[in-house]
């Protein structure tokens, strides 16, 4: 969708990344997703009187690692603050977050849109704890509270308002997503809310230097919805302003079913959060050693990886790009490559071709593949050694998927190995030529098409297992 002529939109995003640490941000309680309600709640998580927070060092390390991945300034001193408001799923009556001294200062990230690239500035990223969950639709007269999520660690990444289309916003969100999943600090599970964002959207007439009044769309957790929500919101604001109305600063909710945004609360009803430094937690001094330790753990990011695939492995640009930008796929690809003599090019082509087709047919992604990288390497090996053709290989992986056998076992048990035994092939060629004297005569009269007829006959008799290269060479010799 393009925006109405004469208008432009301005978008800034606040992305919440749930860190995949073992325990919560300030208590030793497990922070895993999906447990029975209220089974992962410590005394602190329930805010019993007298309990005190102790910061999870791992979360601090993850935040530093993230900061380094976006070329950000890491604060030498970082402070936790309390954000005060009442809500039943916020047990302490305040959320421990960061205000004046966030751990990650200004940074930047490059995004690619429509073949071009653009740098988006990141204002800051800070550590904070998540709230619990309120469930309003389970019981008739009551609301239920699940505190399992209360206190799980998040980093909130705040961008400058520098995106000028929903597409750019999605590209930015994807770029951050790629970073945090490659860093291994977030499981990237969108459905479980491990990666979600709030979008600040405003519109203005082209050429206008001032920003329009913005509305904030809360809790978007899908790349598709965020694009739709932003486009809807921009359209709504333009329509409103053109008809003489004013955009009010407010929080809005996106309804995916109706594809519209609705007002949640306006600024007049907004809380005064009364931020102040949390006196239960001392400021954290981030040392050069702490930063160096995280720098050493930075992984290779997709841009560099793509470059390496092209330069050292000889992959084509498009294939290198696709594999390098998908962490699970690239890990699978590289793991298989280490275990086979097959060329990387064959690996890439087969992975993105037959293998991806199979995954799509099964409706799963590579991380859920029933053929692990080792088993897959076995298929590549058989291809490289010319034991099977690619056509047969497709059949082999389909069987492997359901039987759980190795490639060698499938080839062996179903007799799929190519016939490369020259004496066996000579006998076959002789037999086919003897059985089809008319066709041989026709070929010798100059009908070249007949050559493929002989190949077809041989393949038919061998159920496709005859080595095609050898078959052709032998035929050419016999028909001379």
């Amino acid at each position, binding site marked *: 969708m393009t925006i109405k002529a004469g208008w432009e939109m301005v978008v800034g995003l606040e992305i919440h990344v749930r860190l995949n640490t073992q325990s919560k941000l300030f208590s030793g309680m497990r922070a895993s997703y999906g447990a029975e309600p209220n089974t992962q709640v410590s005394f602190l998580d329930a805010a019993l009187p007298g309990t*005190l927070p102790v910061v999870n060092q791992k979360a601090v390390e993850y935040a530093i690692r993230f900061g380094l991945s976006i070329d950000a300034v890491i604060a030498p001193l970082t402070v936790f603050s309390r954000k005060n408001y009442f809500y039943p799923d916020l047990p302490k009556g305040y959320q421990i977050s960061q205000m004046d001294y966030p751990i990650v200062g200004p940074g930047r990230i490059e995004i690619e849109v429509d073949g071009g690239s653009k740098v988006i500035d990141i204002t800051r990223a800070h550590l904070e704890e998540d709230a619990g969950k309120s469930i309003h639709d389970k019981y008739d007269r009551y609301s239920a509270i699940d505190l399992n999520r209360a206190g799980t660690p998040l980093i909130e990444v705040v961008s400058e308002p520098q995106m000028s289309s929903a597409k750019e916003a999605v590209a930015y969100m994807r770029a951050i997503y790629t970073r945090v999943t490659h860093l291994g600090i977030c499981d990237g599970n969108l459905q479980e809310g491990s990666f979600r964002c709030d979008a600040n959207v405003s519109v203005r007439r082209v050429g206008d230097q001032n920003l329009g009044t913005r509305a904030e769309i809360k809790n978007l957790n899908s790349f598709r919805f965020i694009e739709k929500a932003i486009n809807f919101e921009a359209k709504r604001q333009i329509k409103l302003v053109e008809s003489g109305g004013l955009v009010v600063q407010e929080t809005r909710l996106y309804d995916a079913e109706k594809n519209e945004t609705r007002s949640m609360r306006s600024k007049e009803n907004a809380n005064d959060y*009364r931020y*102040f430094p949390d006196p239960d937690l001392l400021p954290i001094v981030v040392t050069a050693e702490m930063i160096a330790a995280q720098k050493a753990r930075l992984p290779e990011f997709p841009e560099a990886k793509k470059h390496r695939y092209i330069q050292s492995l000889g992959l084509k640009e498009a294939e290198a790009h696709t594999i390098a930008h998908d962490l699970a796929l690239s890990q699978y690809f590289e793991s298989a490559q280490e275990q086979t003599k097959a060329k990387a090019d064959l690996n890439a082509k087969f992975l993105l071709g037959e293998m991806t087709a199979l995954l799509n047919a099964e409706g799963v992604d590579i991380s859920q593949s029933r053929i692990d990288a080792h088993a897959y390497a076995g298929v590549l090996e058989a291809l490289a050694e010319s034991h099977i053709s690619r056509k047969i290989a497709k059949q082999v992986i389909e069987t492997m998927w359901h039987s759980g056998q190795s490639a060698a076992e499938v080839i062996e048990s179903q007799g799929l190995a190519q016939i490369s035994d020259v004496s066996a092939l000579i006998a076959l060629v002789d037999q086919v030529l003897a059985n089809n004297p008319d066709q041989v005569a026709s070929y010798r009269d100059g009908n070249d098409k007949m050559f493929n007829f002989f190949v077809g006959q041989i393949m038919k008799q061998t159920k496709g297992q005859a080595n095609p290269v050898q078959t052709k060479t032998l035929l050419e010799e016999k028909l001379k």
Partner: protein
Amino acid sequence: MIQLSIREMAQLLRDKQLSIPELCSIYFDRARAFNQQTNALLKINCDIDPAELLQAEEALLDESKLLAGIPLVHKDLFCTQGMVTTCGSRMLENFVPPYDATVVSNLKDQGMITVAKANMDEFAMGSSNEHSAFGSVQNPWDLTRVPGGSSGGSAAAVAARMVPVATATDTGGSIRQPTALCGVTGIKPSYGRVSRYGMVAFASSLDQGGVMARTADDCGIVLSAMCGHDHKDSTSHPDAAWQWNLPTLKNLKGIKVGVVIDWIDGLNDEGVKQSTIKAIDTLRQQGAEIIDVALPHAHLAVSAYYVIAPAECSSNLSRFDGVRYGHRSIDTADLETLYVNSRSEGFGEEVKRRIMVGTWALSSGYYDAYYLKAQKIRRLIAEDFNKVFEQVDVLAAPVSPEVAFKQEEKADGVSMYQADVFTIPASLAGLPCLSMPIQSVHGLPVGLQLIGRYFDERSILNVAHQFQQVTEWHKAMPEAYK
């Protein structure tokens, strides 16, 4: 028996001249008998807890554990596992913590026996113990007078020898002021010396657990057992472990004691003034060098404190919302009324006043003018102390400008706040300080405050111990409780 020191009781128990149950029953009996007049204690245990007795008997075999079998009460804001912890509030009337505060478990490890929980001003807010939801505490020296607060129950209990030891907490003077008004000895250690884990928070950056007992030596022994680094409290100091030993010197030669002359001159109560001057004179006679010093920003301390402490309390007390535990109003229509009615019914007037003040001080548009400015004053006061401690080892100062006042004499909060003028500066700077009894006025106790360098509890306890070697005030007891 009730005049024995901890060291003397420990010796009797080890010599088997006295058993732990015998010792404790004396105090259990006194606690029950005297509580009717003083209301110092909230929940008195029926008898010795069998598990505690077992631990005490075992600790008795360890020569180093002087506290084995010694009875005590805990201020009712220390969480005690399985035992109601009210914080003096209707809000927590039925709250039974599932865990012990670190202070409580540390003292249990030493074999101490819990007699009761001590009454207190609600959530430790007050200087008279008239703000307890479970009735005010009477001063054993004169039942018509207040014992001070907020640890008034702890102070009254030790003063009437209902127990030899009581834990207490101090945010702006809550150990020192009741200690002075009840004629006992009490120490507030340096911030970070004693774990705050399991202490219901009032103002986190100021709250510090401490102890009251008869003498400085007793306080030193108990403090050694209470303190230490606690990984559950991020503000606990890594080097918090510390051990008090009796000093070998018998005088104060070479010790420099600073006196803020303005503070003494400014005392309106002539009795308190003369008593304070005389006590400082005693220190001089014992060999101490008395040096005049100034704390130029100390007069701003009360104002700064009554911004910072309420600000922190307004946030700390948000968790009492009627949702998970604590008082929940039965008069609710929706979430809003659940909050409003539960909190309105659960909190007393002084607590509400401070929540309101603190909420105001943190609100947008006022934060810089109040909270940030108060923090600046706090830093200036700490710097004043740093300068003073370049010249002296210990500061001697009044605790309260007056003796125990009559119940209901100070009806409004603000006039009560002014009584904290001498205790708040050291609190803001996080310094160790104690109060010990000096010459009484018209039969009512007076205290002298000793303030030390950060983490130098030893110097103030030493000065107090030497003073108690040549004076008898710490042995004085109200007639009715002898």
